[in-house]
C-alpha cells in the first residue's frame, strides 16, 4: 500500500510544484518592455522619420520628380511614367507612425503628475506644429482624411476615425497653428522642459518655431487661394503683418532636417536619374551657380575624347564642347524619337564609356555615395520650409496687392537665399568637387536675361525661381506647377509638353484614394469620404483617378 501512496505523493508533488502562477507570469514577462518614456523621445522619433529611403525612392525619384520634369529615367522617361508606382508612401508614414508618435506625446504628458504637466506646454505646442506640417503634407495630395479622431486606437478610441474634408482641415490647421504660436509667445508660469537635442529642427527654440509656424500658415494660405481667396488673403495679411521677430528673416530660420551620413542609404540611391533638359538649359543659359550642385557634368572631357580618338571611336581632331551639362528630354515620345541618340553611349574601353546626358548630382541626394572607391562623409539636408520659399511667397503676396512692399526686393532675396542655401547644402554634403560660391555669381545670375526682375513677367519669374528652389522638395515643385500652371512650355524655363504615342498628356495631380472593400473595417467612413469628394466634378472619374484634383487644386 505504501507504494501507491508514494506514487500518488510524487504525482501530487509535481502538481503542487507546478501550479504556482507567479512563476509562469515571470517567465512570460518581456524584460525589454518599459511602461513609460520621456515624451521628448517621441518627438525625435517623429522628426527623424520625416523622410525615408522608401518614400524618397517611390514618391520622389520615380513619381513626382519625373512628373514635374525635375529628372528623368536613364533613357529618358518611359511611356508608362505617368502611371503612379507605389505612390503616396507618406500616407502610411503618417498613419500610424509619425502621427501616432506625436499624439503619444500628449498622452505621455497627460499621465504625468499634474505639477509636471505644465512644464511641457511648449513641447506640446511644438509637437503640434510639426504634426500639422505632416498632416498637411499628406492631405495636400490625398484630399479628405481623418485628423481630429485619428491615432486614438491605442487609447481606447475609435479604430475607424471619421474622415474630414480638406475645407474643414484647412480651418483646423490654421486654428491650431495660431494657437501654438500664441502659446509659444506666452511666457509660461513654470520653467519649461527644453527639447534641446531631441528637436532635430530647431533645438527647441520657441522663437524659431514661431517663425516656422507663421511660414507654414503662409504656405497653407497660398494653397487655399484658388478656393477661398478671402480667407486666404486674411491669413496672408495676418501672417505678414506679424512682428518682424515672428517671421523668418534669413536662412538660419529655415526649417530643415539634416540627416546623418549613416541614415541616407539604400533606396536614396540616385544613380539612375538624368538631369532634365528644360531646367538644365535655363540654368546654363543664365549661369545659375546651383547647376554644379544639382547636376553632374558628362564625361566628354578632352582627355577622354583623346582616348576615344586613340580607340578609333571618334575621328582624329575631334574636340569637345565647353558645355558638359546636357539635360534629358522629358517627353517619352522625344526620348524614343528625335532625341533617342542622345541616350546612346559610346564604348571606348573596358573602363571608359562616353555618355552624353548629365546625371543628377549623386551626393546632393545621398552624401555617402561612393565615388572612385571612396564613400562620401557629408550629411544630407531635407528642407521642410525654407526662407527662400518665404521670400517668394511674400513677393507673391505683394504682387497680388495683399501687403505692401517691393516684389523685386523679395524676389531677389528669395533667389539669393536659395543659392546660398544650396551652397551650404552642397558644402555639408561634401560634394566630390564642391566649389564655394564666387563673389559675383549671385549678382551675375540676378542680372541674367531670364532672371533679371521684369515686373510684367513677375508671376512667371516667381514661379520659375520657386520651382528651381524646390529641387530638394519635389512635392512643393509639383505644387507650384499645380498652383500656378508655371513653368510651362511657353515660359522662359520651358518645360516640355508630355507626348506619348502622339497624344499630349497632363501630369498626375493627386494620389489615388484607396477604394475600400465592403468587408473593410473602415468601409463606411472611407466610402462617405469618397462620396463627399466625388460631389466635385474636378475630383476626377473616381477615387483612384490621379488626373483628378483635390479640393484646393481648383481649376
Amino acid at each position, binding site marked *: 500500500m505504501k507504494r501507491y501512496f508514494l506514487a500518488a505523493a510524487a504525482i501530487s508533488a509535481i502538481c503542487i510544484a507546478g501550479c504556482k502562477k507567479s512563476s509562469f507570469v515571470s517567465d512570460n514577462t518581456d524584460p525589454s518592455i518599459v511602461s513609460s518614456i520621456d515624451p521628448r523621445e517621441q518627438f525625435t522619433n517623429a522628426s527623424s522619420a520625416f523622410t525615408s529611403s522608401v518614400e524618397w525612392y517611390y514618391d520622389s525619384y520615380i513619381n513626382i520628380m519625373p512628373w514635374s520634369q525635375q529628372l528623368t529615367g536613364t533613357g529618358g522617361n518611359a511611356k508608362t511614367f505617368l502611371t503612379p508606382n507605389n505612390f503616396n508612401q507618406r500616407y502610411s508614414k503618417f498613419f500610424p*507612425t509619425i502621427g501616432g508618435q506625436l499624439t503619444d506625446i500628449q498622452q505621455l504628458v497627460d499621465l504625468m503628475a499634474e505639477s509636471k504637466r505644465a512644464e511641457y506646454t511648449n513641447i506640446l505646442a511644438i509637437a503640434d506644429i510639426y504634426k500639422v506640417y505632416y498632416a498637411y503634407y499628406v492631405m495636400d495630395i490625398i484630399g479628405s482624411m481623418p485628423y481630429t479622431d485619428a491615432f486614438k486606437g491605442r487609447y481606447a478610441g475609435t479604430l475607424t476615425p471619421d474622415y474630414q474634408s480638406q475645407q474643414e482641415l484647412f480651418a483646423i490647421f490654421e486654428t491650431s497653428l495660431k494657437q501654438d504660436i500664441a502659446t509659444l509667445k506666452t511666457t509660461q508660469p513654470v520653467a519649461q522642459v527644453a527639447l534641446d537635442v531631441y528637436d*532635430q529642427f530647431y533645438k527647441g527654440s520657441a522663437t524659431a518655431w514661431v517663425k516656422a509656424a507663421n511660414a507654414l500658415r503662409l504656405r497653407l494660405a497660398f494653397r487655399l487661394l484658388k478656393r477661398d481667396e478671402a480667407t486666404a488673403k486674411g491669413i496672408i495679411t495676418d501672417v505678414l503683418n506679424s512682428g518682424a521677430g515672428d517671421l523668418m528673416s534669413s536662412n538660419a530660420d529655415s526649417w530643415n532636417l539634416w540627416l546623418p551620413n549613416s541614415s541616407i542609404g539604400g533606396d536614396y540611391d540616385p544613380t539612375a536619374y538624368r538631369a532634365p533638359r528644360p531646367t538644365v538649359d535655363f540654368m546654363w543659359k543664365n549661369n545659375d551657380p546651383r547647376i554644379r550642385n544639382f547636376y553632374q557634368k558628362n564625361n566628354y572631357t578632352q582627355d577622354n575624347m583623346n582616348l576615344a580618338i586613340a580607340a578609333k571611336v571618334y575621328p582624329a581632331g575631334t574636340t569637345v564642347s565647353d558645355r558638359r551639362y546636357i539635360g534629358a528630354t522629358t517627353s517619352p515620345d522625344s526620348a524614343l524619337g528625335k532625341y533617342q541618340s542622345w541616350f546612346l553611349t559610346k564604348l571606348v574601353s573596358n573602363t571608359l564609356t562616353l555618355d552624353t546626358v548629365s546625371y543628377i548630382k549623386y551626393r546632393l541626394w545621398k552624401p555617402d555615395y561612393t565615388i572612385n572607391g571612396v564613400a562620401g562623409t557629408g550629411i544630407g539636408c531635407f528642407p521642410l520650409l525654407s526662407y527662400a520659399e518665404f521670400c517668394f511667397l511674400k513677393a507673391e503676396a505683394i504682387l497680388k496687392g495683399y501687403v505692401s512692399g517691393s516684389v523685386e526686393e523679395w524676389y531677389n532675396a528669395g533667389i539669393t537665399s536659395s543659392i546660398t542655401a544650396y551652397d551650404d547644402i552642397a558644402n555639408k554634403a561634401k560634394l566630390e568637387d564642391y566649389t564655394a560660391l564666387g563673389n559675383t555669381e549671385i549678382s551675375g545670375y540676378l542680372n541674367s536675361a531670364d532672371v533679371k526682375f521684369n515686373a510684367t513677367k513677375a508671376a512667371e519669374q516667381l514661379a520659375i525661381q520657386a520651382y528651381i528652389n524646390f529641387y530638394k522638395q519635389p512635392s512643393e515643385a509639383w505644387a507650384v506647377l499645380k498652383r500656378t500652371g508655371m513653368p510651362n512650355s511657353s515660359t522662359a524655363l520651358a518645360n516640355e509638353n508630355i507626348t506619348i504615342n502622339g497624344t499630349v498628356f497632363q501630369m498626375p495631380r493627386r494620389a489615388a484614394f484607396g477604394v475600400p472593400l465592403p468587408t473593410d473595417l473602415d468601409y463606411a467612413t472611407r466610402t462617405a469620404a469618397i462620396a463627399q469628394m466625388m460631389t466635385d466634378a474636378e475630383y476626377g472619374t473616381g477615387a483612384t483617378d490621379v488626373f483628378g484634383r483635390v479640393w484646393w487644386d481648383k481649376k
Partner: protein
Amino acid sequence: MKQTTRWLLMLLLCVGCTYVFGQDKKTISGSVKDSSGIGLPGVSIQVVGTKIVGSTDNQGNFQLSVPSSATAILFSSIGYKKKEQEIKGNDFLNVQLENEKGQLNEVVVTAFGQKKSTRKISYAVTEVKGEDITRASTPNIVNAMQGKVAGVMINQGAGGPQSTSRIRIRGNSNVTSNNTMPLFVIDGVLIKPSAPGSDGYGNGTPRDFGNELRSLNPDDYESLTVLKGSAATALYGSDGLNGVVVITSKKGKTRRGLGVNVSQTVTWDKAYKGYAWQNEFGGGINPWFSAKDDQGNDKLLNDDYDPYYSFGPKLDGHTIRDVDGQLRPFVGNDIMSFFKTGNYYNTNVSVEGATERSSFRISYTNNNNKGITPFNTFKKDALTLRATQKISSFINIDAVVNYTTTNAVNPLFQGGSNYNPIFRLSYSNSRNYPLAYALANYLDTTNGGVVNAAPYLRGSMTTVYWQLYQNRYSQKDDNLRANIDINFNIRPWLTFLIRGNINSTQSLNESKLRGTGPGFLGSSASYSETQSNSKDARVQALLTASRKLSNDFDGSLTLGGETKRGLGGYSNRANTNGGFKRADYYNIGNSVNAPSITANNTNVSRLDAAYAYGDITWRNMLTANFSARNDWNSTLTYPDGRGDFSYFYPSIGLAWVFTELLNSKPKYDFISYGKLRASFGYVGSGPDIYKTSTGMGYSSSGNYTDAFGNTIALDGFTGTSLGNLYLKPQKARELEFGAELKFLDNRVGIDFAWYKKNTFNEVIELGTPGESGVTKSVVNAGNIQNKGIEILLTGTPVRSKNFEWNVSVNFARNRNLILNLDTAHGQRTYTLDNAFGDDVRSVAEVGKEFGTIQTGYAYAYNEDKSSASYGKRLLNASGLFYRSRDINQGTRDLGTMMEKFTWGATNEFRYKDFFLFVQVDSKIGGKMASGTHQYGSQYGSFKSTLFGRDAAHGGVKFVDADNKERNDGIIPDGVFAPGTLIDNVDWGNKTYAEAVAAGAAKPLSAATYYDGIASWASGIREYSIFENSWVSLREISVGYNLPKKLINKIHLNNLRVSLIGRNLLYLYNTTPDGINPESLYGSKAGSFAEYGGLPYIRSYGVSVNAGF
C-alpha cells in the same frame, strides 16, 4: 535553476524509495516478446491457480509477486496464442508468444512512446521502418519520408544538402505561425522544427543552414511513427497541432556476445538537367548586328541591351567583337559545367549487446556531404548511446544520450537575392555571356580584389562568383539530447514512469567576407560571428494501471503530468566594421572601426500539464479510448499577473474489430481482418511567448546619432499593434473515421481515413485602418478547416519461398479552407507569404483555400459581356498587356499553392537474396511562382521566348520605326482597353491584329513583347505563375545479401550490398522552361515561389552493410 534542482531531488527521492520496496518480497520478472523479438506491451499475466494478475509494460517487461507454491504463469494477449510457462525455480522468464493464425497483431508506437496494439487504436497511424529511412541515403530525414506516408506532403529544400525541407501533415492548421512542420519526438525529447527561408524581397534567411532536424541521424532509428489527427496527438497538446512524428531509437538486441554492425554508403549527386535556356539567339534586342569593328567583325555594343538581352542575332558561332572589346565566337553559354558532382559519404559503426537484464547500443555516424555548388558542405558526427538496465526487479531504466555536431558551409542563396547563379544568369545576362571568361578573370590576382571592368565583369555573375568562391558562411551546431525513463513496477498491473529529458543546442554562425577592394581590403571585408544556445527540458510522470477487469473487459488507465520548460539561452553577435586592417584575417580584432557587439537573452517559457488517458476493451473486439489533458501555460499570462492560463481538452475514440464476429462464418473467410474506427478530439494551445505583451508599453529603439553628432538614446512604441488583454487559448477539433481491412490472408489490405479538422481562436494580428494609430489588432479569431481522405493500399501479389513482391500505394486529398478569420470585424484576408517583392501574395482569405495566390499584376480582361471581345486580354496603346490593378480590375486569384492530391507507390521485390525497391511518388495540382521564369523571359533567356524571333519561329515581318524591315514581329493576342486612342482614333475593344492590319499599329519586336510581359516595370506576374504537378521516380535500389556460407568464412553474420538511385527523374512535370519543381525559396507554410534554386539533381551510389 532552483526549479531544476527541485525536480532532480524529487527524482532521486523516488528512486530511493523504490529501492526500499525492493526488499519487500521475492518476485518473478521477465519479458514477453513476439516472434520477431519485439517486446509486447499489455500482455495479460496470471499466476496459474491464483487470482494474481498483471500485465507487461511498454517494453514488454513485467514483474510479479508470486506465492512460493506457484508453478506456472499464463500469458495471454489478443491475437497471440496463450502460453503457459513453468517457473521451475527461475526468477526471470523469457517468454515468446506466437501469432494466432489469421490474426493481425501489429504493435505501433504512439503518443508518449507507448506501444499499442493497432487493434485498440482509433485513429490513423503510419509507421515507417528505420531501414526505409536509411536506405534513402539522404542527409535530410524528412526527404527520406517523401511519398511514403499518405497525407504527408514534403517539399525538398533547394539550397544544398543541409537545406530545410517543408513537411506538412493534413494541411495547414493555422495561418499565423507560417510554420506547418509537425512536432518531432525523439525518445521523448520534443523538437519543434523551425521553418527558415526568405521572403519575396530576399529578407529573412535566404541562406538556409537547415533547421533543427539536421542533427537527426537515421542510422539510429528503429522506427518512425506519423501521428496525424487530433485524437492521436492530443497528448502532446499544442505542440502536436501540426501532427507528430515519433521516433524511437534502436535498442541493443539480445544475442550472444557483442554485435558489431558497420555500414558505409557513398552516393554521388549529379546535376542532370538545367533550366530550359535557349542557345539560338545572342545579345541584343534586334536580330542583327548594328556595328562592325575596324577589322569588319560583327560587333556587339556596350549599350543598355546587347550585354543583357538575348533577342539579338543567331548564335551561329562566327567570331564577333564582344561588348567588352574581345573577339569571341558567338555561342551560347552552359552553366551546367559550373555545378560539380556532389557526394554523400555515410559511415556508421554500432556495437550492441544485451543480457536478460540489460542492453546497450552505441552508435557512431560520420556523415559527410558535398553540395554541387562551390564550397557547399555539410558534415555531421553523431554519437548515440542507448542503455537499458533492470536495476532491481522493480526498476527498469532506459536511457538515451545523443550528441551530434553538424557543420554547414556556404548554403546556396535563395529568394529575391541576386547571388543565386541560376537566377542571376537568367536575369539580365545575354545567352552569349562568357561565363568561363568571367570566372577566369573576376579575381584581380595582381592587386587583389574583384575586377569590375565593364561590361561583363561589372556585377552580375562576377558578384555571384565572388560570393560563391571567396566568401564563407558557416554554421556549426552542437546538439545534446538526453532522455532517461525510470520505470517502477509497483504492482504487476501498476507501473510508474518518470521521464526526464533535455535538449541543448549550441550554435556558432560565422560569415567571412573577403574584401573586394585592392589588396582584398576595403569596407566590404567583414567577419561576423553569432554564438547562441538554447535549452529545453521536460519532466514527465505517468502512473499506469492495466489489467483484465473481467472475462469480457480489460482496460488501462494512466494518470500523469509533466512540466516542459523553455530554459532560454543567449544569442551574442560580434561583427567587424569598416573593413579589415589586414586582409584575410577573419577575427573581430581585425576590424578597422570599433566592432559591433550585441547580446540578447532568448525567451523562456513554461508549460505544465496533467493528463489522464486510457482504454477499455470488450471481448477483444471493441475498444473505447479517451484522453483528457489540462495545461497551465505561461504564454497565456500577462505581466501584471492576470490571464486565464489553464485550459482543458479531451478526446475519445472507438475501435471495432468487426471481423471478430465473422470468425465462425466461412463465407467471410476472404476477410482476414477488419476494423472500423472513429475518433474525436480537441487540442488546445497558447499564443507565442510574450504575445500577451503586444502593444503594451515601450521598448528601446537604440541610439540615434544625429547629423551633428549628438547621440540620443531613444525608446519608442513596441510596434503598431493593438494588444489584447483577454487572450484565450487556441483550439483545434478533429473528427476522424477510418477503416482497416485485410483480405486473403492479409495479402491485400486497405486503410482508409476521413477526417475533418477545424482550428479556432487562433491568436492572430488582423489589420486595422492605420488612421486609428494602429495597423493591427491582436484577436482570437479564425476557423481554418482541413478536410480530407487518406487511402493506403497494400498487397502481396506474389509470396513464395524464393520470390516475394509487396506493393504499397498511398493516396491523400486534403482541402484546406479558411472558413473565418474575423469577419465580425471585417477581417477577411491574411497574407502568408509574398513573391516578386510584394507583387504576388499567398493569402488566407475567408471562403477560399489556404495559400490562394493573389496579384494585382495579373492579366486584365475585357469584362463587358455584351462586347464581341469579351474575355480577351486588354492592351494599352503601346501593345503591352495591362496589369489588372492598373486598369481598375484589382487583384486576381490565380488558384492555390496547395496540391489537389498526392500519391506514392512502392514496390518491394525479393528474389532469394536479391531485393529490389522502386518508389514513385507524385503531387498533382498547386501553383508556384517563379522569379527566374519571369525575368529570364524578359531577357529572352528561355526557350519559351523563341516564339516570334524569326519567320521560322512564327515571327511576323514588319517595318519598324527606323524603317528597317525585320521578321521578329509578334502581334499580341488581345484587344485595346476601352478608350485607347492611337492618333486620336479610339481603338477600344479592337484587336491588336486589326490595328496592325489598318496600319495604326506595328507588330511588337520579340524583345519589346517579352520585355513588356515579364519586366519588373510592366510585367504580368501571372505569366510566371503556373501549376506545379509532378510524378517523380523517387528511388530504385537493388540489394543483395551475400550467402551465409560465404560470409561466415570471413566471420561475418551478414553482408549486404546495395545500389541506390534517388530522385532519378520526373516522369511528368508541368513547370515551364524546366523550372525545378523542388526549388521553393523557403520552408515556411506560405512559401510558394522560386528564385533560382538548384538544377535537377539525381543521386546514385552504393551501400555496404556488414554485421559481425
